[in-house]
Each structure stands twice: as C-alpha cells, then as structure tokens.
C-alpha cells in the first residue's frame, strides 16, 4: 500500500526538479549574452567569425590596439562619465537626504501635499520636459555643458522618495532632541548626527543614482555636442557606427569596457541594491 506522505514528497520532489530546471534556463538566458560579450572581447575578429566559443582566447591586447587605432578615445568618455556620475551622485544623495529629513522631522504646514507632490513627480515622464529643458538651456548657453546634466540632481524626486522611505524607518527623535539640548543648530544636527547614522541608506541611494547617471544616454545625447565632452553611452553609438563595422573583436571589447565597471560594482554591492529595490517599492 502506498504511503500518502511518501506520495506527497514524491510529488514535491518532482515539482522541485522542474522548478530548478526552469530557473536554470532563465539563468542561462540572463547570463549568456554578458558572458559571450566578455569572451568575444578576448577573441580576434576571424575567430569570432569562425564560430561560437564559451571560453576566452588570447587577443585581448590586439583588440585593444584596434579599438584605439580608429580614433575613438573610450577612456575620455570613461573619464567624462565618471565625473558626471560622481557629481550627480553627490548632489542627489545630499539634497535628497536634506529634503527628506525636512519632511520627516518637521511638522510644517503644507508638508503632506508637498510630499504627495513629490510622489507624483517620480512618475513624471522625461518626454514632458526634455525639449523645453533643451530650449531653456540653450537660451542660458548651457547646452554642451555638464552643468545641464549635473545640476538637476538637486531636485531628484525619486531620490527624495527613497530617502524618505529610509529615514522613516530609522529616525530617532530622542537623538535630535539630545542634539538640541547640546546646543547644536538644526542643520548641524542633520550634518553631524543624522547623516552618519543614515549612511547605509545614503550609500544605497548613491549606488542607484550613480548607475542611473552612468547609463543615461538620452539626456546627454540631446544636450552634449562636442566630441571631447561625449559620455560613454554616446561613444557606444560611435562604436556601433561605420568606422568599426567589421572589427568585431574591438567592438565587443569596447562594449565590455562600458559594462565591466557596473558588473564589478554589482558584485561588490548587490546586497544594497537588492534591498534598496524592495525598500523603494513596498510601504508597510
């Protein structure tokens, strides 16, 4: 006679097998394009044209030489993107924390509508402002200037939303009162007491704003025109163009250079990123 409990475990094991199979399939789909990119960055163009390979070859330096010889200075784009992303990140983190702290700690009239307005702003699409933004920046003479890419970070609605969610979960009123008794100014309390305590949240927010700025193509594409000010995603467009048409090895290497920093970044900080996404969306 069949034991019903055994039957149950058998069914579970059977299901489990298919679940793992499905997960492995999605995992392969998720990883394989990136893996092929990295492998092909080390293979010569003839090798790439001969067939698929899943293991690296030895032509990394040759590809690099070809990449450099065609006049595309990827490292310049790398430097430009790093500068813009760092500046944007610093502004986003500081001013988002400042604004969110103001909303979380003080009960000023109009605070609720202000915060609701910020939540609406998070969803405001870029289409509704980018052309006007370009037009207005060109009147100010700020097109082709990094200021137009960096300064808007002062008013990042998504940043404030995230910082508010984070601060709500960790602000301790007693600490603020203790600071006041010690004679610290209000802004001093924010700088000396809150910011250090909120560092993990600030760091998570920083990661998100850095990645978003690093990957941002559309704004820079609209606003920047000088070749020496091109950001990395704009250089990808050049890489995709005619000059490199048949130099597959160099193309793959160039793309790999744009992607590797983020992959390393992710390997180091994935914990922050994953918990940050969950926190940005779920309000308990």
């Amino acid at each position: 006679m069949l034991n019903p409990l055994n039957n149950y475990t058998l069914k579970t094991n059977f299901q489990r097998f298919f679940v793992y199979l499905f997960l492995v399939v999605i995992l392969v789909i998720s990883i394989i394009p990136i893996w092929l990119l990295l492998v092909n960055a080390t293979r010569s163009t003839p090798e790439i044209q001969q067939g698929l390979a899943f293991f690296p070859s030895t032509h990394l330096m040759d590809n690099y030489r070809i990449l450099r010889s065609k006049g595309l200075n990827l490292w310049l784009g790398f430097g430009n993107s790093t500068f813009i992303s760092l500046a944007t990140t610093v502004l986003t983190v500081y001013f988002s924390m400042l604004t969110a702290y103001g909303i979380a700690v003080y009960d000023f009239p109009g605070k609720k509508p202000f915060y609701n307005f910020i939540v609406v702003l998070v969803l405001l699409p870029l289409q509704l402002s980018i052309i006007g933004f370009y037009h207005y920046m060109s009147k100010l003479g700020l097109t082709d200037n990094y200021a137009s890419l960096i300064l808007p970070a002062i008013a990042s609605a998504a940043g404030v939303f995230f910082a508010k969610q984070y601060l709500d979960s960790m602000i301790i009123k007693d600490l603020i009162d203790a600071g006041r008794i010690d004679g610290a100014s209000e802004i001093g309390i924010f700088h000396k007491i809150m910011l250090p305590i909120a560092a993990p949240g600030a760091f998570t927010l920083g990661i998100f704003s850095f990645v978003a700025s690093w990957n941002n193509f559309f704004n820079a594409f609209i606003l920047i025109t000088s070749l020496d000010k091109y950001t990395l995603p704009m250089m990808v467009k050049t890489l995709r163009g005619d000059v490199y048409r048949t130099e597959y090895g160099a193309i793959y290497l160039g793309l790999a250079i744009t992607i590797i920093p983020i992959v390393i970044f992710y390997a180091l900080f994935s914990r922050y990123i994953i918990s940050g996404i969950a926190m940005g969306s779920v309000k308990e």
Partner: protein
Amino acid sequence: MQANFRKNYYGYLFIAPFIIGFLIFGLYPVYDTVYLSFTDTTIMSPNSAQWVGLKNFERLFADDFFMRAVRNTWLIWLLNFIPQIGVALLVSVWFTSTRLKIKGVGVWRTLFYMPNLLMPASVAALFFALFSFYGPINQFMVKSGFLPEAMHYLQNTTVTRGLVVFIQWWMWFGQTVIIVMAGMTAISTSLYEAAMVDGASAWQMFSRITMPLLKPILIYIFVTSLVGGMQMFDIPYMLTDGRGSPAYSIMTNNILMYSKFSSSKGHIGAASSVGVLVFIMTTVIALGIFYFLRDRDSQ
C-alpha cells in the same frame, strides 16, 4: 511646546533647495515644453516662432508616423510586460514556497537582476552584434540545423520587434521578481496556514490570498512599467539605424520625438507636441487603471 512649534518652520529651510531646483530644472522646462507644443519653433530660427494653436496636434493625428509610433510603443511594452509579470509571479511563488524550499534564493535573484544595471546603449549594441549576419546567433542556428542558412535578423520586422521585446523583458523581469517577492513575503503566513487547514489547493491560495493582497504592488509595477515603457528609447534606437528600421517597426514615441528634434531644421515645437500628447495618453491610462483596480470594498 512653543520652541518646538517655531522649530517646525525649519522644515521650509530644509526643503528650500529642492523647491528652487525643481522650479528651475523641473517646472519651467515642463511649462516650456507645453508652450513650445503650441508653436512652430525650430532650433534654426528660435526668434521667428509663431503661435500655431493646436496645429501641431492636428498634424500628429493626421500623421501616419505618429499613430505607428504609438502602436509600436504599446505593442512592444505589452508584449514584454505580460511575460515579465507572469514569470515574476511564477518565480516569486516558488521562491517563497515553504513546501518547495528552493535553495539559494538570494543568489538566483541577484543573477536574474543583473541585466537591469547594464548600460542600455551597450546592451542594444551587444544584441546588434550577436544577431548580425556573421554573429554568434547565426552560427549557432545554422550549425545546429535550426536554419538552413544564415539570415539577416535585423531586416525582418517581426524578428526585430521580437528582439526589442525580448531585451526589455530580459532587462526588467529580475527587478519585477524582487518587488513581487517583497510583496509576497509581507503577507502573513498565518493566512496560508489557515487556508491549508481548510484544505485549500495551491491555486486557490494563490488566487484568493496572494493575488488580492498583492494588488497594490501589482498596480505599482504596472504604472511604473507603463510610464517607463512609453519612454522607451535607447534599445530600439541603438539596435538598428536610429529611425526604427526595418520599416519603422521599432519606431517608438521617443524615437519619433527625437527625429523631429534632430531633423535638419530642428522642429522643437513639433517634437514637444509628441511629448505632451504621449504624456496625456499615459496619464489617462494610468489613472484609469487606478480607478478600475481601486479597492472597492474599503469605500
């Protein structure tokens, strides 16, 4: 008490930089875009612009290109959103199942999410290379006998559109898994235990407990994905020639807006009207979703 009340006005000081930044870099550009959409302003002659009323909008509705861009954007978004939410729900149910006890949930999730962080411009260029005539996909398809001979994938409208759909799915399903899982783990396990005692099946628990309680999260995912999807640009722009080839099959709203912006005269008035119209369309749909899915019981 008195001191505390006065301190509350410090709040305005803390939010002042945001407000100033928003007025300069947020509100004014929105105003300017809406204003421009009623004019025939071009980049070449910004000072001789005329107020043309609704003419830009009339032209868009009469323009087959605009309708095509709207259709394309919706189609590409819907076709990637449905499997995205479907796979995310399925995977999340498995990951949170106390019966299956899947190992390494954190690792799976971390790897599934990775494509989301990659530079979209590079991702599109990568898929362009992978699907090029001499690329790895053709090599694989021909060698394994799936195709008799290599084909030009990116000259076929269905394949190209499908590829954009796939890339969007590939980049976003991992994020959806994380959000759906966060929502599922927030549901009290006692509800499921009670249902088990009553002899509920797995499907009944999913449809009667998980789905209703997940509704706010699902609306959140739907709305953010819709707003993002209507702005799709990098992937379709970089995958082919930047004009939505082949046969304008992947020309999205933003590609159309950009092509008006970058046309020889730089029709920023007409480009603005595309942005404004797409915004109105997106907002109406998003509000409609809120309205239909709102919690009727609590009213």
